[in-house]
């Protein structure tokens, strides 16, 4: 990744390959009120959190 003009958060972000995304999540859902909701092929309900927030309702 070219880090020119990128925010620190992007520079330190964790990269997930297409295979990882596919293998782990099956469906990669990011709801407006959450950070990440992983619902994988085993229907795991793992998620980062953060509800509401200023961007939320």
């Amino acid at each position, binding site marked *: 990744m070219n880090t020119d003009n990128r925010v620190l958060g992007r520079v330190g972000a964790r990269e997930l390959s297409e295979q990882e*995304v596919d293998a782990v999540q099956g469906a990669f859902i990011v709801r407006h*009120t959450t950070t990440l909701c992983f619902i994988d092929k085993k229907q795991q309900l793992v998620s980062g959190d953060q*509800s509401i927030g200023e961007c939320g309702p």
Partner: protein
Amino acid sequence: MKLIVLAPEDDNHTAPIKWALEKAGHRVVCWAGLSWTENGQASLIMKEDDTLLLGGHSVDPGDVVWIRRPELPEHNPKVSEADKKFASLEYRSFYHSIAYILETLPVWVINRYSAARVMIQKAVQLRLARQCGLKTPATLMSNHPATVREFFARENSRTICKGFTPHVWQKEGQMSVAITETFELTRDQLPNDEVLTYAPAIYQERVPKEYDVRMVLMGNQIYSYALRNAKQALDWRQDAGLGHVTAELVPTPPDVEKGVLEFARRSGLCFGSLDFGVDAKGQWWYLEINEQGQFLWIDQFNRDARLLEKFCAFVTQPQGSTVPVEARQDLFPSLLEYEELLKNEQVAPVGRPRQEDPFLSLEA
């Protein structure tokens, strides 16, 4: 009494909880949030007895309202382009009126919107946690380069960096993504000053943690689970998504329990998911609370947790009850049973996002 869930019916926590409560004979209705569609419409009729209608459901005395994860207010797309901004702001304002007035009605709101709005702020959380006797790491929130550099000049300490909000970058036309995550940053790795102004960030003393704890607060009861992953990653969340963590019930130290319950009392939150880091000395460091954090995944990592049943018992008990939810958790079916039905397509699958996501960016 009925439970009103402010979330789409197919939200990944709403769906199994609604199913479990209904199976036990309780009434559950969902309102996905304020929108122009028939189901999304709402009315607040204010006279002697104020009446709030959410979709086709009235909010009645004795109801429990779980503000889980409603959709963003959505105006009618047919509105004139010239009026869209106004319509959007009006929808947002009306939603706020609904969310705030709920806590003035004779219903139990989980959590009160005013408390949730304040406590979502990481700075407020940290300060209150410290005031309640919880151990918190030294923290700087800043976009001022000189102050950031000064923070990194602390002797014998390591520093992590994290954002105020989560974000995902998806490469255009690809499935690969980059996800914000807590990461360690050294003084030598600090970029030039201008980059530090691109976005404010949270810089925090790195807790020398042996393992993480995810704690679930339900009223005056708390359940703590030690999360361990072989990689000892700074941020366990994505590893949990990869199935690389274990979740083991651990006793909460009495001083931590006391601090958390005081935190709950003072913040006004009755439900939430808290994160702690535990160091080699066994000290629990408060990291954050997500008042509508995900919790059912713990049932998948530890079938004895039974958080689905506990939550069902929690929301169907009288507000402020001190009776342990364990006394009633057997009234409800398990997440495992729900998962079996899901696997056999005997219940509807959880949903996909419907709206554009402000936490998702596309990049080249």
